[in-house]
């Protein structure tokens, strides 16, 4: 069941600069495991040592924050768009 995952700018060095990737997964948790297989290093950016999604990482399915659904157990359906949204700042080099 492929879903589209939007990769934010700061994580694109792990996805060969791709801003959107397709991975399988019935749940967000499975999706993260599959992301890690294709793009090693992504999981530790998204999850802490205990495997929970880090507090400063925001994962959305379509428009909804998974924290207000079932977190990592939230199920995914064909065609869902998953976004990882970090805080953004920049533009200047001091």
């Amino acid at each position, binding site marked *: 069941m492929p879903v589209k995952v939007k990769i934010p700018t700061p994580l694109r060095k792990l996805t060969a600069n791709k801003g959107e990737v397709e991975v399988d997964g019935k749940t967000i948790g499975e999706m993260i495991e599959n992301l890690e297989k294709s793009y090693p290093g992504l999981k530790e950016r998204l999850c802490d040592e205990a495997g929970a999604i880090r507090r400063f990482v925001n994962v959305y399915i379509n*428009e909804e924050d998974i924290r207000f659904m079932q977190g990592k157990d939230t199920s995914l359906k064909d065609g869902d768009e998953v976004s990882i949204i970090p805080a*953004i*700042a*920049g533009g200047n080099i001091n």
Partner: protein
Amino acid sequence: MSNFTEEQIRRYSRHIILPEVGGKGQKKIMETKVLIIGAGGLGSPIGLYLAAAGIGKIGIIDGDVVDLSNLQRQVFHHTSDLDVPKVESAKNKMTAINPDLEVTTYNERLSAKNIMSIFSEYDIIVDGTDNFPTKFLINDAAVFANKPLVHGGILRFDGQVMTIIPNQSTCYRCIFHNPPPAGLVPSCQEAGVLGVLAGVIGTIQATEVLKLAVGKGRLLSNRLLTYNALRSKFREVKLHRNPKCAVCGEKPTIKELIDYEQPVCAL
């Protein structure tokens, strides 16, 4: 409309004929005091459009001088302004557009020490800064001062905007918690920004300020608008207040402002 001069009626006629603004709305705009933090990429379109729109008082804070590398996006500043304090250059451009505007300049860096007294002079705060420590400081101070905050951020080809109504809508810390650790922050080599992106995001921020001033429309509160310039895509996600938010939650743990260390960039 008796309180407007004839010149003002002409100057603001395209606002006044909008039913959603009208003379009343324009009056509110002219009575509003806005603080713009940063006279750079975002601050420029914010300041220029708000000056043109007739905002009565604008405060602008920035401790830098104009550098050649700023001119690609910071449209406040002209080539002839090199080495001039940014706030001076910004003031000159804004008052050239609208001589009715009162501008207060703060040629200094914002910090936990000066932020509350500066905020106290204004109705609406606009974040046009380029770094996380200041963004968190501004969010916390806006919550403490209970002032609406229009947040904007840009990086490379991505931008985001949200409006925070303290204690009513999601704050920056509700969703982003703390300045992100080194791994999630792009290094300088990965940084850079498409100049015009500052214009897109800054003008959306200025729009939010005008909606707040007039009291019309639906704000970007409890939602985050993101824009990717390469794909020409706007997206919106819903935001929810975090009951455990360290600054605006049920049991706040942050009771004093924090000056975070600036992450050092190894270029």
